[in-house]
């Protein structure tokens, strides 16, 4: 599904290298987790894959189902099936959450040359998904993420994911700022989308999210590289011993 080869990334504005040769191969239907200390480059990887400005790819490649992601505009990547649940969802005053969701769904369908969803079907679908995520109708009417609590913002990300039905979902620290109940809701939302074909890359700092969203493979990222990959037990090891041992091991 997603093939990342030898990805090197630095900042456009200054000479700072962040990713230093990332290799990842995600098969369709699998859940991969990336763990790693703060500042290791996890968010940068997710931004570069989704097309944020400010980063320069100096070497390497990223392909989604064989399509060169790095050559596409952010909206084209989305239409191709990529979705990033932001670590820090952006507030957009003046744009209603519903309007936003509707334009996103319609735009993607248009870009893919599919027929647009009718207003009625769209509304039904949003209501059903919002209900599962315990999102009040009031939150749908408010401007995108404005005045939302940390947990509400994250649930709103999952709502968008559920509506857009992407093939490749990247979740960047979706667990941060969530209490236990909210974490369960969000995990249920994610798990409901697992259909044997949809692929997930779950970025997290802590193991606890992985109790709810069970990964097939766990990668450890440090200083811009994947330093170790393994099964779910790797996450438990990190939880127990922290990153220090692993870092020494590979140093």
């Amino acid at each position: 599904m997603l093939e990342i080869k030898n990805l090197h990334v630095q900042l456009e504005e200054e000479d700072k290298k962040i990713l230093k040769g990332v290799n990842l191969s995600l098969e369709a239907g699998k859940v991969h987790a990336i763990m790693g200390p703060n500042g290791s480059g996890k968010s940068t990887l997710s931004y570069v894959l989704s097309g944020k400005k400010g980063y320069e790819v100096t070497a390497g490649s990223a392909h989604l189902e064989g399509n060169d992601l790095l050559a596409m505009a952010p909206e084209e990547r989305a239409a191709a099936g990529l979705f990033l649940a932001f670590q820090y969802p952006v507030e957009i005053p003046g744009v209603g959450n519903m309007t936003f969701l509707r334009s996103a769904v319609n735009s993607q369908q248009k870009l893919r040359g599919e027929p647009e969803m009718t207003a009625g079907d769209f509304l039904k679908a949003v209501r059903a998904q919002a209900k599962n995520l315990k999102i009040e109708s009031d939150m749908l009417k408010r401007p995108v993420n404005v005045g939302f609590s940390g947990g509400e913002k994250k649930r709103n990300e999952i709502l968008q994911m559920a509506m857009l039905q992407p093939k490749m979902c990247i979740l960047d620290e979706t667990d941060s700022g969530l209490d236990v109940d909210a974490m369960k809701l969000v995990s249920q939302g994610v798990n409901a989308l697992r259909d044997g074909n949809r692929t997930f890359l779950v970025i997290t700092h802590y193991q606890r999210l992985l109790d709810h969203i069970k990964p097939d493979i766990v990668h450890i990222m440090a200083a811009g590289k994947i330093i170790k990959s393994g099964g779910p037990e790797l996450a438990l090891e990190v939880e127990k011993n922290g990153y220090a041992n692993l870092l020494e091991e590979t140093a």
Partner: protein
Amino acid sequence: MACSSSTDLAKKLCLDESLWANSGQWIKNARQSAAKRVEDQGLPKRRDEYWNYTRPDAFLQKELDFDVVSNQSFDIFSNNLSTVINYEDGVLKEKLLPVISGCSIESLQDAAKLDDHWAGAVYGVPEAAGQDPVKRSLAALNTATASQGLLLLVSGKVKNPIKISAVSNGSIDSTIHHIVKVEAGAEVTLIETGQYGARANVVLEVEVEKNGSFHHIRVQDGQQHNSLTHIFGRLGPNSTFKSFTLSVGGTITRNECILELVGDTSSATVAGACIGDDKFHHDDTVFVTHGAPNCESRQVFKKVLRDGAVGVFQGKILVKEGAQKTDGYQISQSLLLDDNCQFLAKPELEIYADDVVCSHGSTSGAIDEEALFYLRSRGVPKTKAIDLLTLSFIAESIEEVENSELADALLRYLTAFLEVR
């Protein structure tokens, strides 16, 4: 001879027989004193401080400096119930004016034939008062020469808005002077759409008496045309005045609004939004005088500029001695869609009372890149995402429109406008 004057301009005004033939005494008096104001004050010059950001030439020179195109207007409010009055090339098209409950509607040209008319106490009066401390001679020139306009005497709560729909087809210079008197406790909403001429000098004088309420919504669209508009308003005790202008067309536009809050606990809002490209030059010049205690005023302006367009905002709040507990607010913001455009803002406060709250702010910014990326990452194409953010920027000023049906119509129109831009 209707008057005797020394300057060329004033002489010309006095000699324009068509203005004076069959004219009643009240309008003769008003025109004569306005002509005198023009003569005494002279016309605006480039070096005048008040015309620092917008050259007055566009409204003074003999010839129009662009090819005139027929200006099509889109009727934004066609779905809303209203009493419609049409103007074409600066001339009233209706043979008979509508008769509605709560408001008498007359044309200036008919009223001018009478020797005595209620309008005599309003026509040119707020305009004359508005000449101090800043000279607005082009408004006085309008008072002296206008032969077209509507006179609204509002005595009750008028249910549906009165809509003036104007179109222009040719190289017409038009001078329009409307007056509105809202009597105690009465209410009216006036809508103006389109443009009166390839070049228009428009004055709207509004007198709102105790507990009265005046709402004004204006849409300036069409292609190339230059407009100079003045609104002069006087607010009595506990009265409300709200004016909102959306400008999505025109070349050079200067909208002045001069309000005087003379009665206690009166409330005034002047708001506007514009979107323009290229040679679009849009100037909002506002002067709000608080002359009584416990009044509030709001000025809210948004300008979206692209490809060389220029936006100007000159806004002043003057709080006179004794106007305690004044609550004055002023904000002007621009969204610059590229590096070529300019926003020039001159916000001013002048306060002679000690117990007042006045705040003002002015900002100028580009599209929020974080928000743009967020939208695009969800599949919204760049141009559409910019439109959404533009709309959200403007929406805040449309919130100043109290009638939600009309506010929705404005938003719908803007959405459609941005899509085809």
